C-alpha cells in the first residue's frame, strides 16, 4: 500500500480542509473519492477520441469503439468473465433491475417458482424482487437475519424444492458482514443444480478479488463509482446461457438485429442489453480505475481493509457510549455501523463533520428491513478504503468523544 502523502497526490480531495480540519473521508460505501488519473483518462477520451460507438466508420468512431470495448475486456478480465458476458449498465441498481425484470418476463421464472432473498439486502436487491414477484405473480420468501447477522445454515433452511432464484449480497452495506458466497453457491448447487444465483457485489467487488468462474454464480452486479470509477457506469455479469435466454430490458438503437413491421430480432451478446448510446466516458473511467486497483493488488486492498476494520472495531468498542451493530468480528470488512446511545445519527454525523472534518454516513442506508432487525430507524456508518489508515480511525474516535461530550 502507498503512504498517505502518495494517496494525497492521487486523490486531490484528500488535501481538502473541512472547517479547518483535514478531511477524513469515511463514506466509501456510498461512493469512493476520485483519482486524478481516472478523470484525466475520461477527459483525454472525451476531448480527443469521442464519437458514437459501433455505428460509423470514421476514425473517431473507430477509436471510441476501441476505448469502449477495451474497457469491457478490462472489466471481464478483472472478474474472470468472458467479454460477451459483461454488460455495461448505469450501476448495480440498474443491473439488478435488469436481471429481475428480464428473468421474469422471459418466463425463466414461473408462477410456482420461489425467489429467496434476505432482510440484510440493500433496497436495490430487495425492492426489484418484491415488485417483480407482485407484477408477475411469483412467490417470494424472505430470510430474516436475526439481529441483522446473516447465518448460512439458517438461510439454507429456507431453500425448498420450489426455490428457483436466490439473490444475495456478498457484503452487507450496513454491517460490513462478508457473506460466504462461494460456500453458499456450492451448497445451493448441492441442493439443486439449477437454482439461479444472483450476487449483489456492489460492496464486495471494490474490496477483494472476485472470480465469477470460481464463485460459479449466475449473475453479479456492481457499480463503478464505489471502486474509484465515475458515477453512472455499472456492470452486469451473467452466464451466457441465461443471457441468451433472456428478453432485453430496454429496447431501441444498437440492441437490434433486424427490424420491420413484422417484428424485431435482437443483436448478439452483450449488445442485446445495451440499448441506446452507452456511457463511454464512464466505461473509460472504470477501466482506468481497475488499472489503479490492479496495480495496488486486490489481495493487498482486502488485507488492508480487513485489518483497518478490525482495528476500528477494537477502538470503537472501547467507547462505552456506543452501540455497535453486526457481527463485530473478523467476518466484517470495510464497513461498521453504530449509534451513540440516545443520540440521532444525523446529529452525530453533522457534528463530526463540522468539529473534526470526519465524513461519515447517517441514515437507514437504503436497508430498512435490516434497520428493523436492529430495532432502530437509522445508524451511523463508517466505511474504509485503500487511502484510509489507523490515524483516521483514531481521529474518528476522538471526534466521537467530542460529540458525546457535546450532546450527553
Amino acid at each position, binding site marked *: 500500500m502507498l503512504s498517505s502523502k502518495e494517496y494525497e497526490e492521487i486523490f486531490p480531495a484528500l488535501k481538502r480542509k473541512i*472547517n479547518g480540519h483535514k478531511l477524513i473521508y469515511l463514506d466509501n460505501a456510498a461512493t469512493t473519492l476520485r483519482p486524478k488519473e481516472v478523470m484525466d483518462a475520461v477527459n483525454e477520451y472525451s476531448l480527443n477520441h469521442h464519437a458514437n460507438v459501433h455505428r460509423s466508420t470514421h476514425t473517431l468512431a473507430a477509436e471510441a469503439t476501441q476505448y469502449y470495448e477495451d474497457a469491457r475486456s478490462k472489466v471481464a478480465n478483472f472478474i474472470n468473465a468472458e467479454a460477451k458476458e459483461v454488460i455495461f449498465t448505469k450501476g448495480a441498481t440498474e443491473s439488478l433491475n435488469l436481471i429481475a425484470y428480464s428473468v421474469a418476463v422471459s418466463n425463466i421464472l414461473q408462477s410456482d417458482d420461489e425467489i429467496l432473498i434476505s432482510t440484510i439486502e440493500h433496497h436495490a436487491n430487495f425492492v426489484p424482487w418484491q415488485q417483480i414477484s407482485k407484477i408477475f405473480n411469483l412467490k417470494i420468501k424472505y430470510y430474516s437475519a436475526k439481529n441483522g447477522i446473516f447465518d448460512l445454515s439458517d438461510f439454507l433452511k429456507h431453500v425448498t424444492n420450489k426455490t428457483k432464484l436466490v439473490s444475495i449480497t456478498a457484503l452487507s452495506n450496513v454491517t460490513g458482514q462478508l457473506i460466504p458466497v462461494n460456500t453458499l453457491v456450492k451448497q445451493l448447487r448441492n441442493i439443486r443444480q439449477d437454482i439461479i444465483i444472483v450476487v449483489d457485489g456492489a460492496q464486495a467487488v471494490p474490496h477483494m478479488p472476485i472470480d465469477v468462474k470460481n464463485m460459479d454464480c449466475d449473475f453479479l452486479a456492481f457499480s463503478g463509482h464505489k471502486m474509484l470509477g465515475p458515477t453512472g457506469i455499472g456492470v452486469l455479469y451473467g452466464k451466457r446461457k441465461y443471457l441468451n435466454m433472456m428478453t432485453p430490458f430496454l429496447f431501441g438503437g444498437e440492441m437490434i438485429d433486424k427490424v420491420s413491421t413484422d417484428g424485431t430480432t435482437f443483436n448478439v451478446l452483450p449488445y442485446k442489453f445495451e440499448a441506446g448510446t452507452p456511457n463511454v466516458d464512464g466505461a473509460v473511467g472504470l477501466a482506468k480505475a481497475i488499472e489503479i486497483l490492479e496495480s495496488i493488488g486486490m489481495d493487498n486492498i482486502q488485507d488492508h481493509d480487513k485489518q483497518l476494520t478490525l482495528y476500528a472495531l477494537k477502538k470503537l468498542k472501547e467507547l462505552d457510549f456506543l452501540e455497535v451493530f453486526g457481527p463485530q468480528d473478523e467476518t466484517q470488512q470495510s464497513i461498521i455501523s453504530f449509534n451513540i446511545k440516545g*443520540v*440521532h*445519527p*444525523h*446529529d452525530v454525523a*453533522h*457534528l463530526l463533520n*463540522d*468539529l473534526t472534518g470526519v465524513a461519515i454516513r*447517517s*441514515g*437507514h442506508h437504503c436497508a*430498512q428491513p435490516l*434497520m428493523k432487525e436492529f430495532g432502530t*430507524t*437509522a445508524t451511523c456508518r463508517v466505511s474504509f478504503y485503500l487511502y484510509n489508515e489507523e490515524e483516521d480511525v483514531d481521529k474518528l474516535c476522538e471526534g466521537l468523544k467530542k460529540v458525546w461530550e*457535546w*450532546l450527553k
Partner: protein
Amino acid sequence: MVEIGLEELYSDIILDYAKNERYKKEIKNAKKAEGKNLSCGDEITLYLKVEDNIIKEITFTGHGCIISQASASMMCEYLERKTVDEANKIFQEIIKMSQGKEFDKELVDGIEIFSDISKFPMRTKCFTLAWHTLDEALNGENV
C-alpha cells in the same frame, strides 16, 4: 465561522426543546398529518385541534434528530392559540428563513433561534419537517 453557527444550532435552548416532552403526545379525535424524511427515516405525526379558526391544541409524536424534535416542540408551543391564518403566515416566513431569504422577524419570533439553519443545507429538511407537516395538516388532504 461555521463552528459559531454550530454552537447556536446546538444551543442549550434547542437541546432543552429537543428533550421537552410537553408537546409530545397524541390528541384523540384531532386533525392529523404525517410527515417523513425519507432519506433518514424520521417520522412525525402532528395533531391539531382547531376551533373557530383558532389552534386550541397542537401536539406531535414520532422520532428524529435533535434539530427536528426541537423544531417540532418549539413550533407547537408557538402556534398554540394562534389563528390558522397566522399559522399559515408564520409557515411562509419560516420557510423563507430556512432558505436564507429575508423574513419577517416579528412573525418568526423565538423560532429565529434557527435562523442559521440555511448555513447547513443538509439539516434544513430536519428543521422544516414539522413545519411542512403543519402545512399538510392545515392545507393538505388530511387523514
